[in-house]
């Protein structure tokens, strides 16, 4: 488990370098916070210590990725951590200043508008391409697409890495973090906002909606941990994570907006910044239907044993 000090210092770094309020005025392109983050050394969190990294495992960075989601960090820090690891493993360390998104086939690539490069699967290799300005993100959330015309600047062997699974697992953790944050915001709002002479949080209907929201956040967070629990990315773990997180995101967004009322959809309030990214995240790197189908197919391929056996063997650590 990641120790609390590491997480806290990372959260401080994010709050200092990239406050959520900046997002409202943010333009696309590499954000100003990137220099500070690069200088902090966190981009090499996954690299073995022998290669100058912190030697963390995927499950150890999961709380950090959640914190990126909770802070709506407008930079592909988690994805760059992974790209730097793979590049180093291939003996081709990445140049400084590269902010990389993972770009498997996807309806939309979150954070592409804030990246300098993308990692694109091509045959048995992943190619690094230099990103060019793409069409504006219809969600106004810094996403984009990777054009086929982007210039290739290098490549690494794909090995047995499932790029879509990796992208989905990292996105799931960011989404789980964002969901935790809007739960907190909704609880605070329900306790502060008064209607009919008492706080919203005193109304049973509102209480039950917030209870459901908290449950969905709990379930999504548990799923996001499954996505980043193994020694390396795994398609079935990602399937469980992204399917569950995407499904939960829809419920959490709806209930958060219901609690906040109309103020939540205005540009002056932060809520819409979170919910647009969650809605976009649901579509990106496979929705719940896509991953549900892959997970279901894997279960049907495994003819022996109960579903409990399947979950234990394929999705959970029984060390």
């Amino acid at each position: 488990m990641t120790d609390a000090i590491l997480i806290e210092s990372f959260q401080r770094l994010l709050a200092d370098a990239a406050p959520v309020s900046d997002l409202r005025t943010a333009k696309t392109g590499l954000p100003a916070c990137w220099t500070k983050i690069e200088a902090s050394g966190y981009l090499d969190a996954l690299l073995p210590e022998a290669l100058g990294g912190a030697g963390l495992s995927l499950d150890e960075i999961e709380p950090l990725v959640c914190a990126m989601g909770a802070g709506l960090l407008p930079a592909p820090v988690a994805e760059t951590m992974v790209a730097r690891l793979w590049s180093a493993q291939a003996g081709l360390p990445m140049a400084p200043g590269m902010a990389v998104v993972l770009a498997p086939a996807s309806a939309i690539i979150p954070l592409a508008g804030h990246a300098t490069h993308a990692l694109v699967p091509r045959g048995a290799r992943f190619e690094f391409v230099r990103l060019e300005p793409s069409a504006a993100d219809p969600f106004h959330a810094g996403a984009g697409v990777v054009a086929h015309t982007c210039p290739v600047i290098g490549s690494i062997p794909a090995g047995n890495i499932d790029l879509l699974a990796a992208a989905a697992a990292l996105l799931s953790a960011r989404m789980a973090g964002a969901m935790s944050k809007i739960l907190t915001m909704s609880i605070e709002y329900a306790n502060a906002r008064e209607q009919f002479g008492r706080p919203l949080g005193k109304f049973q209907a509102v209480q039950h909606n917030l209870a459901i929201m908290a449950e969905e956040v709990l379930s999504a967070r548990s799923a996001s941990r499954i996505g980043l629990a193994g020694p390396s990315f795994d398609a079935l773990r990602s399937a469980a994570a992204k399917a569950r997180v995407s499904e939960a995101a829809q419920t959490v967004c709806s209930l958060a907006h219901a609690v906040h009322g109309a103020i939540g959809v205005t540009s002056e309030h932060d809520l819409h910044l979170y919910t647009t990214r969650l809605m976009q995240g649901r579509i990106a790197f496979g929705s719940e239907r896509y991953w549900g189908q892959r997970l279901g197919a894997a279960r049907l391929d495994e003819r022996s044993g109960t579903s409990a056996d399947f979950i234990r063997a394929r999705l959970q650590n029984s060390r």
Partner: protein
Amino acid sequence: MDRVSLLDGFGPAAIPPEAEALRPAIKAFLADWVGTWPPHRRARTWTAFDRGFSRELGRRGWLGLTLPKHYGGAGLDAFARFVVVEELLAAGAPVAAHWIGDRQSAPLLLRYGTEAQRLAFLPQICRGETVFCIGMSEPNAGSDLASVRSRATPNAAGWLLTGSKIWTTYAHEADYMIALVRTSGTADDRQAGLSQFIIDLSLPGIAKKSIRLGTGDSDFSEVHFDNVQLPAEALVGVAGNGWAQVNAELAFERSGPERIYSSLVLLDLWISHLQDRNDDEDLTTVGLLLARLAALRAVSVSIAARLAAGEAPTIEAAMFKDLGTSLEQAIPVAIADAVGSRPDRPVDPELLRTLAYLMQLSQVFSLRGGTREILRGMIARGLGLR
């Protein structure tokens, strides 16, 4: 820390190898015992009552796993019990005869009982010989548990008990009931003045009647106490402390695998019928249910870790139970839709029979052990909403 910090208590927890080591033997035993039973019978699992089965589990050392050895237990931790219970439920074993005693009565007596009570009852529970039930709800007190009216009045011989309990699981088969009753004040005093008693159900003045359900089964009972003389040593814990004692049990009652696996036999039966005629929509249904199940199993293991550490994560257990029973209810709903989506195809009669049973019983999943609405109120308070 903010108010949702309770969500951060769910660190990743893994079942330790010494607990996992129990799995192969229990699996092999269950394959012999229930492996050949038809699924509609296995689907009854923790509502199926079989004293012979429970005694056999006791003989093999799989009951009272968390109890100290000198009371007949195995001296293991919550993970060991998790593994055994998970296998029992996934196989659809008939666990009702030892279920309450093993899960709740034994830990309660270990924590609040006198040494004499522990020595009298714990070894019997570990042997699977004695059946316990829990008397909570009354004809006019269900979700509003604090309004119980059954009353025990002190007298020279101990306590004189009069009142009624209802919806008590298998009271008509049980040997003992641990009941929450009033010992002082009136129903208006709410949580104050309640106490727990261990009641020998063979005593004079006790009338038991099973309640027949629409499924044809009789899992529940009503019990009437008419001036039943209880000995002084029937009191469990401290007089007037019953509410706190009952609440201490709730995290155990609400956080186990039984809150996610009640429809598992049906799910696996349906999956076995999909093997050669799958379509994309069915695969998605299977995958989404498994994703929910996997996330919840991890939460359950994590709560087991906190229970093992001596914590009482009551609110977290309530969240888990609401999520888990919602999933258990979603399984028959989804399968009914899938089965009915192709009117031209025959449905396997055993699948239909198992489905029909769970479509009915699953309505109870969010009632037993605290209704969904009560849980959501508790969770809201835990989140800091007042």
